[in-house]
């Protein structure tokens, strides 16, 4: 059964099982490896993407549920946030604050944070704590917080 969806503005048709999680369709079928596998049960957030503008954990999102949707992944984030080329202001803040360490969770972090900022352009620390439940084992949390504040007060 063919499933059609739009990924970073490009229409994609996949002849795969409708219960295949979006994560594995992106990584293994479309070769877009920026979205990461962390836990497989929506517990860590490494696989976060935007589905019609909303942050979703793609490892538990079956393709059938996103048929016809607009998907944005980390590869398309800069453009989705209005950057003509290079990085968005959010990603640039991540570089300026030297946020990533191993970096593996950061795709998901950026997708989760960009979704938060769309709904709440000036989040407080409490807003950030409540909304960003992604796991980072390197402990980059203080710099994530600093980068969010840097970009929202700029």
């Amino acid at each position, binding site marked *: 059964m063919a499933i059609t969806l739009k990924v970073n503005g490009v229409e994609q048709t996949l002849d795969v*099982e409708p219960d295949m999680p979006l994560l*594995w369709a992106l990584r293994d079928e479309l070769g877009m490896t920026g979205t990461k596998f962390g836990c497989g049960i929506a517990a860590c957030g490494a696989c976060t993407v935007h589905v019609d503008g909303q942050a979703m954990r793609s490892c538990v999102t079956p393709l059938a549920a996103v048929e016809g949707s607009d998907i944005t992944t980390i*590869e398309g984030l800069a453009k989705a946030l209005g950057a003509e080329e290079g990085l968005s202001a959010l990603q640039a803040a991540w570089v300026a604050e*030297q946020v*990533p360490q191993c*970096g593996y969770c950061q795709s998901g972090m950026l997708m989760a944070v960009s979704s938060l900022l769309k709904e709440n352009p000036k989040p407080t620390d409490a807003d950030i704590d*409540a909304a960003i439940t992604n796991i980072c084992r390197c*402990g980059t*949390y203080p710099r994530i917080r600093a980068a969010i504040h840097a970009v929202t007060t700029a």
Partner: protein
Amino acid sequence: MAFDLKKPTRRQLLIAGGVAGGGLVLGYAVMGSNKQEKVRAALVNGEGEMMLGTWLKISPDNVITVYVPHSEMGQGVHTSLPMMAAEEMNADWSLVRMEQAPAQQVFKNDALATGFLGNEMGFPKVFPGFIEFAGSTAADFMHLQVTGGSSSVRYTGQLGMRVAGAAALDMLRRAAAKSWNVPLSEVVADKNILTHAASGKSATYGEMASAAAEISPPSDPVLKAKADYTIVGQPIPRFDIPSKVNGTAQYGIDARLPGMLYAAIAPCPVFGGDVASFDGSAALNRRGVKKVIQIPGAVAVVADSYWRAKEALSDVKIAYDLKGNEAVSSDTIYAQYDKALAEDNGSADVEKGDAAAALQGAERFFEADYKVPYLAHACMEPMNCTVHIKDGKAEVWVGAQDALGAAAFVAKTAGLSLDDVTLHPLMLGGGFGRRGSTIDFIEQATQIAMQVDAPVKLVWSRENDVQHDCYRPAITSKFQAALDADGNPVAWHNRYIGKNEPADAAHIPYAVENQSIRYVESETHVPFGAWRSVAHSQHTFFTESFIDELAHAAGKDPFVYRRDLLKDQPRHLAVLELAAEKGNWGGPLEKGRARGIAIQQSFQSIVAEVAEISLGDDGRVKVHKVVAAVDCGEVINPDTAVAQVESGIVYGLTAALYGDITIEQGAVVQSNFPDYQMVTLADMPVIETHLIESGAAIGGLGEPATPPIAAAVSNAVFALTGKRIRKLPLMNHDLTTAGKFAQAAD
């Protein structure tokens, strides 16, 4: 890379040569200074044999490339090591590039080996890949590119990068003096340009590189004075970060090859068990499934997508042979430890004075038993490895803390020569010891690839990762101490399970005249490995909690008590006092809060931490602030240094608050993040880091911030509630009652 290297002379430290297309390459050869001669002699088989590491390349376009023989796992070493080489070269940083050294023997890392063998207690046994390689000899021992033991900057940087950089600069200047026919002392080298003021001549490093390649490298290049540094000590942005914010960074799990297949595995849940039989026929009927195969200890499904392979595993019927370990639990393991400690006086770690006699005649006597559970590493990137075996050769794509060791492991597993294995090192989505100490997943990927006629990527599920780690061991540590009439400890008596590395982990810095520290081996079937800071993370919780007990027993402030016992340890004292000062020790606190303090030296760095905590209504510990003081001797990149301290604290805090791997029926109970909980943003304290550059030998920073945090937090819990935490994690303690009791007594 086509390098044309000259054969080094017998006593030459550095080796240089030309490079195709012009330029200079420079490496670090084994024949070295007298100081290390003995160590080196044991590692080289014969005359003319050499070991090289720490390569620099200067190209005609004036770009300096530094080949780093270490893995980048977020610690910033792909930037800090080039900084050290560039500093000695008076380089223009904008012209410096980094490449990770390929996993080839020409890049084996002599500086690291020298550091471990010459300066410390020997190479960590927790990195077995290279030792296990068939036909291993002393020279094979050096087939290593280990990233561990907080060693990269300390050894590769200090012994390799700096020396190579200084030698390159010396050769460039000599080449300029020769070709311009001017005195060497008048040739100035700065920002990749050589100049001679009197004659007005100038050339870029790149233009002079080929001429420099004709100059013999100096045997003992002069290093720059710290006062002249312009790169080292600056917060230079890391090379690897831009690729980590747009999805382009390539981790092991991102390897993609034409015709690649994917494997998922079901290992025997009980460690040491094996597959008795399996029926994969139903799984083979599923879409995309190519093979269901047995490897030692596990069944693997190979399919054309990872998800299909993983889903099909549920259709495989497997009978396991549990090998008699199915009755083991955490309770039986702790009981086994207690029995071992009761029956065996163990082997000496530290024996000083006469602790037994001092305990006998003591004014006051104290004892306490401490325990920590098993811990998994839980790297964010689940273990994975891609292997393609074809025509008697293997190609490997993996993120590993020891790329050459991993290649040797693949060669051994596949029965190939090391020369027939090509390993492509990719980034690590977390290491923490898991991707160096044990490379079981690389062995499995090789075993699967041997049965598959295509490149195959093995990916572990998170459940595989939590339940089949090589764990930080659960251990028990028993203490006795005697205090004199003034409350000072006169005897320190410690018996613990399992000597691990580093060897000094259970040692105390305090002035206690009589010490008896001994250990008893008590093996279990649970595999263990290096976990960030290795044995320090357990023993610092034990020793820094028990000394805190003694301070309270003596009626003294825990900071003052430590300070008085450290008066002959100036570095410790400075670190402790800075942490106390910056952590506002003894200063006012909000109601319901308390502070705890702890200090530890590890990997040649000393870290003290002051933690400020409160209890939530649910009895959960909330850590509000951690102030860390760190003496790492010298700081290479202050921004990366602070990041590593923050990182070490968060890693240790997760373990202190939540970390608990338990064993039931021979297997791990926990399986994924919901039952193996991690600190998240909402749990985060404010972390303040204060770095001291004492000028002592440069210390590591990847690990030393981890050990003190559990004791600092637990000591704060005692200060707040009167409840002494002798077993981690904190979440298993009911602090609600204790908290209320303490408030009522207020």
